[in-house]
């Protein structure tokens, strides 16, 4: 289990846990980001904001937030 900010561009990872207040976790979940979901790292935050792909959607993630999403690497 590693925080999302350790993942690199192009990698596919599965969300394991999101840490944060209840409202925050619920909000992310409702936007499609919850444990079990496979996401693709579109931009890993080194060159700009962290962007992830969930299905056909793109979610931009604010500064520092990638640290509170824990993932495991796939294949």
């Amino acid at each position, binding site marked *: 289990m590693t925080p999302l900010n350790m993942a690199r561009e192009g990698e596919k990872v599965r969300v394991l846990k999101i840490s944060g207040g*209840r409202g925050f976790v619920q909000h*992310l*979940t409702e936007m*499609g980001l919850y444990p079990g979901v496979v996401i693709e790292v579109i931009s890993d935050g080194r060159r700009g*904001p962290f962007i992830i792909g969930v299905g*056909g959607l*793109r979610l931009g993630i*604010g*500064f520092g*937030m990638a640290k509170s999403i824990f993932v495991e690497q796939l294949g």
Partner: protein
Amino acid sequence: MKEKKLKIALTGNPNSGKSTVFNRLTGGYAHVGNWPGVTVEKKEGKFQFRDCEVTVVDLPGIYSLSSHSIDEQIARDFIMKEKPDKIVVIVDASNLERNLYLFTQLLESGANVILNLNMMDIVKNKGIVIDTKILFEIFGVPIVETVASKGEGIEELKEAIVNESKKTKGSFRIDYGDDIELEIGRIERIINLTGYPPRWLAIRLLEGDREILEMTKKEGKNVESQVLNSKKRLEEHLNHELETALVEKRYAFLSGLIKESISKKYDLLEQLEISDRIDRILLNRYLGIPIFLGMMWLLFQFVFTLGNPISDGIKIFMGWLGESTSYGIERFGGSKWLSSLVSDGIIGGVGSVLVFLPPIFLLFLAIAILEASGYMARAAFVMDRFMHALGLHGKSFIPMVMGFGCNIPGIMATRTMESQKDRILTILVIPLMSCTARLPIYTLFAGAFFAENQGWVVFSIYLLGIILAIIVARIFKGLFFKGEVFPLIMELPPYCMPTLKGVLIHMWERGSLFIKKAGTIILGCVVLIWLLASLPLGVEYASKESLIGQIGSFFAPFLKPAGFGFWQAGVALLFGILAKEVVVGTFGTLYGVKEAGLTNVIQEVFTPLSAYAFMVMSLIYIPCIAAIATIKRETNWKWALFAAGYSILLGWLLATGIYQVGKIFF
């Protein structure tokens, strides 16, 4: 045949094409945008289908029925309290899983829903087939496929709205698993609220819905202890938060459903690949901010290079109109005062404001293009790191940019923000964003004194506004809103080419308000100023002895340190509180536009330095009445008065500082 009346609501995720469906249904001109939170006001339209008159309410784009942001609360309140006859849930069919989430929540609530699969063209282009029969069997509600951007399927949607539905009530349910179902059953048995299915109430209570809890309390049923017990038991058992567990179950249900009903799962769309590549450049850590600033600079070049020649034309026309009407009125026996009212007051005042229609429309056009292309949502991320460092929320940047058009929609756009603290803070600094109403002031003064570098000078004022907003926010944050910033997460819609029709409609919607304003409040103000300038009887028009001269003379000493201590400036700023355009309108009325022209008079009474100080003062000194009222509505009186107070002080200090320091050098 008696006419039937129906009231329906449109709802759906942001970027699902909701506003486009609304426009197609009603033929109305609701604003079509491309980033979350564009529908900030409740929009209503009507259409007639057969013997039915249907009122359509466009709700803000939301992700769920929880109430994280004001937007979600507005939508939820409407659905729960006003109980529309039907709810059309618009989903982006190319992203079914996430989009259907809200739909299942609504279905569970027992609402009378219609599922609208929008953007079917994208789905078909990718060779994906959605089996709507399976969806229908499971959901038991009408399903309509549309391509709203091309108007396809809209008639079918109207048909489905008007049709008496054969609702298979209560047939849809998600199985939450034995443990959760057991507790749902326990709560279900002791709960009863008219109009809502007990099962849904039980689920909402387990999800920690406070409003539902209040409602049950009001009916005298105390279910709280049961809910708490159930929650505790389940969380011990599940070993993590119940709210998340429920959402996960719903998603698990949806992904199973989608496996059954969709022929092929898609992963990456070509459009997204292009979009991703553009993002690598536009959102680059080092290039992002320079590109953003460059775009803003280009925007102003565009606004002035294209707008100025048209403005000059209007100016010449107004000068001619003023002279010929006063000549005409006197020639045909009209009295001298009537001629003065029309040519000095109305044409001089309103005319000098109308001159700025071209840059205002062009600015709205440019903002509309930025929004529709998808860049606006990115701006939040470009600025996020920077904003974060300052204790501001990345999302507050969008309302701030919107504030450039008009502060009022900017203030209302803060409704998408989840944290109340972040929201009030953003609202307080939005008035520092130069709205289009202030543009005439800058254009007039920059044109008169810095004609060579007009674009640069106006750009510097806009930039000053942004910088001040950031500094002020930083200070207020430390004083009143201590604490963590709510993290930023936002959908980035794929970039797309804005349609000409879309951006023109948008430009007209906002720009026409300005024309309306010119015909009402600005007209009223200039007539009042003309009247005060002509009284007491016998006084020389617009002289220091007139009533207006006396009012202005009272304020003039306060403005002297800032370099414009003459009574006309005092009057202009005073009446500018009603609407910022009136600042220019006042000068137009008091100095007249005939013969010499306003620019020449301005050049006589101001120096380049005092002109710049005046522009800065106009930028900051107070939000207009309408903006103050909006701040009050969105927060409370205390914050509205605070916003007015701090800006007067800040404006005066800065204008004075610029003038006093500048005097040493120039």
